[in-house]
């Protein structure tokens, strides 16, 4: 049976406009690392999905994928290839057999220089192009240049901007400055959506991650994102717990829903499922769709394809049976 997959909206209808900086709230953040780690450790053991349910969850993971290439040797050639894969993440026969005709990833994510190439490759589709920005990955460039970079990417056709925050502002407790910085990024984005990368691996403590997440949301982030993929520690489930709980807290108190994007180090089907389980458990079903959930990754797609192929055939496939991104 073949049914076309309805691609949901890429972004929520009502954007988070941000709120005034509430320092009392920021300082109230309490994170108990050991307790968070205990919860994270059982996230994938308390819940599991099998058989057709697992297949459905994996197809959903594909829909939420920000298919990414962020390498010094990126060229128009490999970016075009990535875009082709983004539009056809599954081999046609699998698409048919799974009843997932028309499935595509959530977005393509590239450096600014490759934005025009990606926009061109995806023209005629509404698949968004995301650009990493603001001196990605370290963010150690002057603010005006950061703002200029955002505007340039938006002009080039990027509809999502993945910015990096200045980690020094977190490490020195300069919450006002961080708020102002992200506010400025948001304004520079205009209609493009703002994903703020807190670079959790650089923030030293989970409490810093929680406080930084909150400040970014107050400043108007559409998404908060764990990592650049370039820190020594990338997306971990404990960090994910802290950030999703911050999102929940923010939604409960303000009514605005902010999305979440774990990124970096997500390579296996099992990891993708764990992240989905975390979203369902901590934030609920609404946060399982690409308007509020993205997974920043690339190689995970091949592993998901292998798993889906096993589901369809009962046999383990070789990587070279799947079109490479």
């Amino acid at each position, binding site marked *: 049976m073949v049914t076309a997959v309805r691609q949901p909206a890429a972004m929520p209808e009502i954007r988070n406009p941000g709120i005034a900086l509430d320092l009392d709230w920021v300082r109230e953040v309490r994170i108990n690392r050991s307790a968070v780690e205990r919860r994270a450790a059982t996230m994938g053991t308390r819940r599991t*999905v099998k058989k057709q349910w697992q297949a459905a969850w994996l197809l959903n993971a594909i829909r939420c994928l920000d298919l990414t290439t962020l390498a010094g040797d990126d060229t128009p050639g490999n970016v075009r290839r990535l875009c082709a894969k983004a539009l056809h993440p599954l081999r046609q026969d699998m698409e048919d057999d799974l009843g997932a005709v028309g499935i595509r990833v959530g977005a393509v994510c590239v450096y600014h220089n490759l934005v025009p190439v990606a926009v061109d490759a995806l023209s005629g589709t509404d698949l968004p192009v995301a650009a990493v920005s603001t001196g990605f990955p370290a963010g150690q460039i002057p603010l005006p240049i950061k703002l200029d970079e955002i505007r340039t990417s938006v002009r080039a056709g990027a509809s999502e901007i993945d910015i990096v925050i200045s980690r020094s502002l977190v490490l020195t407790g300069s919450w006002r400055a961080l708020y102002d910085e992200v506010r400025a990024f948001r304004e520079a984005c205009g209609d493009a959506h703002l994903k703020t990368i807190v670079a959790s691996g650089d923030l030293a403590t989970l409490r810093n991650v929680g406080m930084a997440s909150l400040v970014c949301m107050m400043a108007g982030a559409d998404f908060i994102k764990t990592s650049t993929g370039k820190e020594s520690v990338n997306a971990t489930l404990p960090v994910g717990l802290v950030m999703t709980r911050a999102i929940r807290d923010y939604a409960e108190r303000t009514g605005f829903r902010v999305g979440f994007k774990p990124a970096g180090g997500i390579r296996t089907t099992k990891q993708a499922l764990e992240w989905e389980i975390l979203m369902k458990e901590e934030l609920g*079903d609404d946060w399982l769709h690409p308007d509020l959930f993205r997974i920043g990754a690339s190689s995970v797609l091949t592993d998901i394809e292998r798993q889906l192929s096993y589901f369809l055939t009962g046999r383990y496939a070789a990587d070279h049976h799947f079109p490479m991104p």
Partner: protein
Amino acid sequence: MTVTEIPSQLEYGPAPESREPGIDWIAQHDARFGLFINGHWSAPEGGEYFDVLNPATGLPLASAAEAGPHDVDAAVESARNAFASWSQLPGHTRARYLYALARQVQRHSRLFAVLESLDNGKPIRESRDIDIPLVARHFYYHAGWAQLMHTEFPGYESVGVVGQIIPWNFPLLMLAWKIAPALAMGNTVVLKPAEFTPLTALLFGEVVERAGLPPGVVNIITGDGRTGELMVSHPGVDKIAFTGSTEVGRIIRRTTAGSGKKLSLELGGKSPFVVFDDADLDSVVEGVVDAIWFNQGQVCCAGSRLLVQESVEERLLAKIRARMERLRIGDPLDKAVDIGAIVAPVQLQKIQSLVQQGVEEGAEMWQPSWACPQEGFFYPPTLFTNVSPAATIAQVEIFGPVLVSMSFRTPAEAVALANNTPYGLAASVWSENINLTLDVARQIKAGTVWVNSTNLFDAASGFGGYRESGYGREGGREGLFEYMKPAPREGAISGETAGEPDATAPGVPPIDRTPKLFIGGKQVRPDSGYSTVIRGASGQVIGEVGTGNRKDVRNAVEAAQAARAWSDSFGHQRAQILYYMAENLSARQDEFAGRISLQTGRSRDDAAEEVDRSIERLFTFAAWADKFDGLVHHTPFRTISIAMPEPIGVMAAVAPRELPLLGFISVIASPISMGNRVVAVPSEAYPLSATDLYQVLETSDLPAGVVNIVTGPRAAVASVLAAHDNVDAIWYFGDDQGVRDVEAASAGNMKRTWAHQEDRDLWLLTASGLDELLLRESTQVKNIWVPYGE
């Protein structure tokens, strides 16, 4: 097979663990199990069997044998025969057997887990990830203690045949907690699993066979309470170890009173879960899940009383309700289920009726919107708010997935509410302020306190109760003493030398003295208004002491209760006072020697030696006051796990008849050195050495109420003390009848007892073994778990 559409809501779907291996194993035994006695499987002599149900379906899984008197006899005899050689094996040999058991459990871990979930109804996630790994860990850990017993515990020996009775909530884990330390310390066992859940114990019997343990070292007999009674009253059993309800624990205490059986009891609880306003509330919510919805809440240490600071109460309760809505209940063999089945209809009914009572008493009940499965025995997670401490559901152990919530305003009120229970098994304290958490952890009366965590278990950390949650510890170094006893002593010095009593000098009579009672730091007249004449060795009247009665005991206990500050004082302070007592006693050495001689007719030299030894004993416990250290356990968590000896509280000490001064000093010095307050009853025959001490106590800066002395008819006074619920422990040294009475009466509040027949040599021991014994009997171990990491 296709996925027709990605649903807008992603559901989990069924994720069943295969039950076939468990069902196959049962089928291999024709679904009928015998008794494992002396290394063989046999049918019960009475031919009686009972059904074992699957709580998730209500249908029978198998039938198991009801062990009768003959079977229990055979099991005890087999254990007795095996004990002779097992206890004499080198520790290394026993270590090899325990290691083999650990490896066997690991090799068959999934079968154990599946069987456990089939039989008990607990989610496979828990049996697979918690119960069975902890079982293996327990055998590994105790293999180590078997290896080290001889070097680490010289002067100790095995107890003998141990009867072990375990509950249905953690069937195999409780078996491991019982069997591993018993075997490690050279005992042999007769173990009875609960009649609801015998299957994993029976599989364990096969594992014992396969591991090649000598026949009779482990005997597994099944049956209901009748079998348990036979074990408890069996004269061939040297020790009973029981985990279960306080109600049954009380019966066991009374049954074994005066039998000389060693006893350890791990009983019920109503453990507080204390949340301060600066806690990580989202983590608290997960803690609550682990506290009360772990194993359907059928956990003796379940955090069943949520005490939350008023300022965050509403926020926390909202979070908890939201979380409850997401819990999944259902087939225990489903890998994505949080709550399985309640073990049996009787337990389900008990939960239902207590919840009903809670509603009737005016508490607000909340349950998630989803429904439980129709077949099998299920009960939804339940939250009660608007609960007062007076409500039944706030006091009674429900042993089900039911949480009651109350609020507090200040740390002091949190502690008061936490301790407002007859139980004292465990507690959980949540705050990001380490000063506050440790302060509260110290003040809560419970054997285990988890800081910012809950229901963490490990073989290296002793688990057990304060108050009516029982006594004895399981796990850790502290748990081993339940399965060892001091070896027969050699080299005890005889203190007695026959001698002529001193002639009383004729002439001017001595000034008349009136020894009253010593209560609350004052000498007070006995309530009765009577005095008892005390005669010397030659029958002459040498004094009169007050005849204490129950009101005097009541007053003495009140005075001791009021002297709470002593328990919070530092060892260094207590040491100074004990030294000072020794100094003041020494100044009056001749007088005390004379009095001993006058009362007992022993020679002056001999009496002087008793005084010397009494002074030395005061020095000994002055020395120990700041040296009986706790331990930091090596648990496999990023946690500082502190095992801390704490005073028991108010202790009654009924002194031995002989050795009027040394005996008396011995029973008060250790308890007060450890911070207890004491109500002491001197030798009935020779009380004057104790009454003479009043002035020593008064001049030694001992705070009022720390030592209270009630003279009078020992049996009557002791029985009032043993039955007093504000007395936390009692030491008694006397005759068989007295031991029996004291042990039986102690069941009222399950106070700890150390009661023995008069053993004069014990008090003359100078070996360190006596010190350690006295110190252990003067303290209870609290394990505080402090996870760290920012």
